[in-house]
């Protein structure tokens, strides 16, 4: 803020750093320990890949990992696809109930996931869909949709409508205008939304937990089960891996979202 003492300024900045320290402390500790040879956190610290190698032999975790990745990829495609369509509609058309439509996007984010997950469990069982990866996909897409619509919508706000008009005056048919102008302009937003959807699914625990039948699970669900049974350093290793992957994804998303070739 303008004015105020320099001393005060640095105190405040120092506080910010402390906050960041607090936010990253457990993550850093956990990640470091994943590379420590000792299974019980005994120091001195000896760098080793032993727990990661143990992971490679853990078939359950590997299968769960593959499930997670596959599910996240499917979620990314579906959620981004239908979310983008919806975002286009909300941006282009003057709809009478638009405010209502936008409010309807809130439940997945504001209702506790516990309730959403258990209600899905009830409903899917009742109508015969049951549990499983397909059920989880249904749930993950529902959770990702609001985010996709918001992210793509924000990107569309740049007035792609007028660009299509310009394309039309230059002789482009509506299809050509969409393909050559709207789509490329939208693309960074769509890709960013896709990454976001992937991350939302990959990290999703609660919904997957309720919709996982015995024998089929995703990585977070496996980790939870393992934690409840008792600590093993392998959990540490896989956790470190996951957090690095999801933070990495988010970093890419952040760059795309901000520097998406806009004017």
């Amino acid at each position, binding site marked *: 803020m303008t*004015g105020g003492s320099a001393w005060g300024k640095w105190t405040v900045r120092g506080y910010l750093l402390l*906050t960041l320290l607090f936010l990253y402390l*457990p993550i850093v500790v956990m990640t470091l320990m994943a590379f420590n040879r000792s299974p019980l956190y005994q120091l001195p610290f000896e760098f080793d890949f032993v727990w990661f190698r143990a992971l490679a032999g853990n078939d359950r975790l590997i299968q769960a990992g593959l499930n997670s990745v596959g599910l996240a990829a499917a979620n990314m495609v579906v959620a981004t696809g239908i979310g983008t369509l919806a975002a286009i509609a909300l941006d282009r058309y003057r709809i009478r109930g638009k405010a209502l439509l936008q409010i309807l996007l809130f439940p997945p984010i504001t209702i506790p996931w516990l309730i959403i997950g258990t209600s899905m469990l009830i*409903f899917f069982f009742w109508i015969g869909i049951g549990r499983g990866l397909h059920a989880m996909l249904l749930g993950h897409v*529902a959770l990702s*949709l609001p985010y996709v619509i918001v992210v793509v919508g924000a990107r569309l706000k740049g007035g792609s409508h007028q660009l299509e008009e310009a394309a039309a005056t230059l002789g482009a048919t509506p299809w050509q205008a969409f393909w050559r102008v709207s789509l490329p302009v939208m693309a960074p937003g769509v890709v960013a939304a896709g990454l976001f959807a992937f991350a939302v699914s990959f990290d999703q625990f609660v919904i997957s937990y*309720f919709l996982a039948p015995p024998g089929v699970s995703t990585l977070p669900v496996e980790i939870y089960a393992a934690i409840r049974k008792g600590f093993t350093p392998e959990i540490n290793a896989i*956790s470190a891996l996951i*957090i690095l992957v999801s933070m990495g994804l988010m970093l890419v998303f952040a760059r795309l979202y901000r520097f998406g070739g806009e004017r």
Partner: protein
Amino acid sequence: MKAAARRRLALGFLLGPAYGWLALTVLLPLAAMFYFSFLTVAPVGGRIAEPTLRHYAAFFDKGFYQTLTWRSLKLGFDVTVLCILLGFPAALALAKYVSGRWREALFLLVVLPFWSNALVRTFSWTTVLRDDGFLDRAIRVLWPDAEPLGLLFSYPAIVIGLVHAYLPYMILTCYISLQAIDDSLIEAARSLGASSLQLFLRVVVPLSLPGILGGVLLIFVPVIGSFMEPRILGGRTGIMLGTVIEDQFTAVFNWPLGAALSFIMLGIVLVIFALATPLLRRRLSGI
């Protein structure tokens, strides 16, 4: 009219899949759960269910559930207040005391953990808080004879884990509000003779209230319904309304009871929203 029909078709094609999906996976299940909450047993596997109010009645009869709800609300309150106290200054620092590339980078750093895996983050706290974990060892560096803190599997551990998980939310919403405060407003206040404290209380806080309230709503609700963090970090002391609801679905298989409790929780959340909205509107109207 061809144009109007075409428009309706286009809208249906564009909006249909997304909202249809949401209806199928969010709205209908909620309705189904509402229905279930009035049944004696879950009508699956060939069982016949009768309508009943006894699950809702159980909430009001058994003191246990009310204590539990109270605990969950208290947890929500504690976590939210701590998030405000810790997060607001951080947001202030980001919005007004840092600029340029540093601001973008730090902002990203703050938000990054938030968008990573919640389960893993909770788990990472166990490695720090456990007996002879990182925290104990760090303390022993300064006080070699210290006893293990025994933080893990206690209420404070749950609070720490939840604050850690949701703090970035509060920082984010406060940051958005704070950085919308024009520097010229602050300069104007100073030119009128306001001290830093007056500036803070009379200008900054009121203008950032929407951000704070937004953060409160986004934090309080999920915390009330949390079960993963209480279980992992609280162990046996981590019994909350969320964990009991979870039990109904994974251990006890009393789905109707779980459904009823869920809707009671939802009802509490709605009541809080309803109470908050006029407050919000009054505060926001002056902006």
